[in-house]
């Protein structure tokens, strides 16, 4: 009996060991025959984008017979926590899409492989969009390949602007504000109507005013960061934002740009215009698509455009990933054909060689601003420091100066941690 038990136990242990060995072997085999790519759900939002990814995968698999591509779509809100978990577990994806404001923290921590030596092998690397390319560099080394940038535009109702005589290509902020007043006079009696729907805490839009007036969020002085929102120029920009919001928007002063989506408000007929990414025009509803067009947000200085937030994405190869395969996939996904497809979808391509000055998206990108390049910047974002400040300003809970001072203290503390 005892012998049987011992034999049975030995068999069980043997089977367990064999099973674990086999599964380990499978994982190893899988790693050499498959690459995992993390893209954001934006890339699954339209048929054109899905087709672009499918074409890239097909090309990659043609160049690498037997290697499959496993594309996994992530959301902006949770992908960093998931990425952290893979870094801890040693099972990182082979390619990851990162927002350009997220890059610095991870580059500084050593989360990505150094691509500097291979830079020349990436398509159009000599003409990469400078602002976007900068977000993929740290200490002179290349860790992220520019993927695409997003333009920010005003999407508007041509019928309403025409009916009121509001300018459809305003030369200045004052002219745009005058147009908003006209829209308000004609359509403002409709409950909930906004001449321009602006989510109160949409800092991507609001901080454009700060940079337009010559201000900034923070500056590095002698190696130390200092919040600069309380500088006179920044305060002028914040005051201008508050004044423009009060003229143009009846949106909640405390909401963000995703609750609700501005294009949903527009599609309900409750907005003469909306501000946001250029691709918003895709989703304004069948009823209003024929009477929708776009222009660039004007500066307070006549004849200039307002600096727009240069949001965008980079593609990086995390540590522990298959660098050669990861780089090859990125080459395919950021080639000239792929970037032309991005341009056709309303995004800004990663290379200036494809720029068309007449294109409204690229005109918007001619003046842009970017967040402070600190490894801790993402903590300022996650801490909602700017959103809190904007809500305080718009609701009148604090004066512009008080709110800016509070935000500056937070920013200075966080960036220098």
């Amino acid at each position, binding site marked *: 009996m005892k012998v049987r038990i011992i034999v049975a136990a030995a068999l069980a242990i043997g089977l367990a060991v064999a099973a674990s060995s086999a599964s380990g072997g499978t994982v190893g085999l899988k790693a050499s025959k498959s690459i995992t790519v993390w893209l954001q759900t934006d890339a699954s939002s339209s048929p054109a984008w899905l087709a672009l990814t499918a074409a890239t995968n097909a090309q990659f698999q043609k160049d690498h017979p037997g290697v499959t591509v496993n594309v996994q779509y992530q959301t902006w*809100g949770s992908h960093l*926590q998931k990425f*952290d978990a893979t*870094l*801890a577990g040693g099972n990182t994806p082979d390619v990851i899409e990162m927002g350009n404001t997220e890059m610095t*923290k*991870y580059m*500084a*921590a*050593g*989360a990505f492989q150094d691509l500097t030596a291979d830079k020349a092998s990436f398509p159009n690397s000599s003409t990469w969009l400078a602002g976007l390319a900068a977000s993929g560099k740290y200490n002179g080394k290349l860790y992220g390949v520019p993927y695409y940038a997003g333009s920010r535009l005003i999407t508007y109702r041509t019928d309403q602007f025409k009916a009121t005589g509001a300018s459809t290509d305003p030369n200045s902020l004052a002219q745009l504000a005058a147009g908003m007043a006209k829209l308000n006079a004609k359509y403002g009696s409709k*409950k*909930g109507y906004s001449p321009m729907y602006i989510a109160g*805490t949409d800092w991507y839009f609001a901080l454009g005013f700060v940079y337009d007036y010559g201000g900034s969020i923070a500056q590095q002085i002698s190696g130390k960061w200092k919040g600069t929102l309380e500088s006179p120029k920044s305060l002028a920009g914040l005051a201008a934002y508050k004044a423009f919001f009060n003229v143009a928007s*009846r*949106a*909640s*002063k*405390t*909401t*963000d740009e*995703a*609750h*609700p989506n501005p294009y949903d*408000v527009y599609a309900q007929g*409750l907005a003469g215009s909306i501000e946001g990414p250029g691709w918003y025009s895709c989703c304004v509803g069948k009823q209003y698509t024929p009477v929708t067009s776009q222009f660039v947000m004007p500066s307070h200085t006549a004849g200039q455009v307002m600096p727009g937030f240069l949001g965008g994405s980079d593609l990086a190869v995390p*540590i522990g990933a298959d660098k050669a395969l990861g780089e090859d996939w990125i080459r395919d996904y950021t080639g000239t054909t792929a970037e032309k497809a991005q341009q056709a979808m309303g995004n800004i391509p990663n290379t200036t060689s494809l720029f068309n000055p007449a294109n409204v998206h690229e005109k918007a990108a001619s003046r842009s601003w970017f967040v402070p390049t600190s490894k801790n910047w993402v*903590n300022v974002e*996650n*801490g*909602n*420091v700017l*959103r*809190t400040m904007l*809500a305080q300003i718009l*609701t009148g*809970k604090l004066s512009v100066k008080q709110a800016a001072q509070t935000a500056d203290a937070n920013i200075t503390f966080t960036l220098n941690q």
Partner: protein
Amino acid sequence: MSGTTSEVPDAAGALGSRRRRSAWDRAARGSVPYWLILPVAVAMVAILAYPLYQLIVISFQKYGLFELIRHAGTWIGLANYSSILHDPVFWNTVVRTIVFTIVNVGLTMLFGTLIALLLVRISTVMRILLTAGLMLVWAMPVVVAVQVWYWMTNFENGVLNYALTKLGVGDFFHHDWYVTPTSQLGMVTSLIVWGAIPFIVVAVYAGLAQVPDELVDAAEVDGARPWQVFLDVTFPVLKPIFLILTSLSIIWDFGVFTQPFLLIGESHVSTSNYLMGIYLYEEGYAKSDFGRGAAISVLMLLMVAGLSFFYVRKMWRTEDVA
């Protein structure tokens, strides 16, 4: 003789052997319970004790993204604890969470008890309908409940604003229910209390069945008013249940995360509306400062352990009585 002499040692040997076997059997029988709980004990150590040990170790380390990638933290002693205990945000959050917990637990117990008392007095049909309604509330997943709450209180077209306006309460068109930290946490409170009431109702209603009718009748005959009957007869009988329910509610509400995080929204959580669960998430995960996050976890663990004291003590006494 030889046979006799040989039998005596054999008998003694057999007796000794029987005694040894008997002692062995007793020991074996005595060890059975320990063998039976061994798998559970191993599982508990693997699932709870080891992670807890790791949590405590990491809380004494600098363990950020850099260290996470290298799978090695740097020992910094009590620095994480010191920085937390010197952080005004931490103390503000502790006070806010305590007030939040008191309000939530108080309202939950109050409404839960009132509805349980109502259940005793209504007809069977109404009791079944009300109980079914409560069960539906209980069965609703928290994330779904948050979404429903968000829709109802939506700024643009929430039904709450519409209903209040139609009822003539005032002009609630475009009323923002999330404009201040107090109103944000107020909405979270309404959701948590709503979701927690069914459990309290069911538990208190079950307890009410234990209240002797003759005591209630005697009190009523003596002229006691309903609230006096409740305070002097019902409450003393239900006191152990109330104590346990209150203790459990405190533990749950003190560490609540899902409802405030989702209802207030990730883009609106800030130091002015942090609760302990969110503070832990923001400091530990959002900032990738896992060492500090671990230290906050340990401090929260100690606080919850303190809050659990009454619950554990009550359970202990119940065991003694049994």
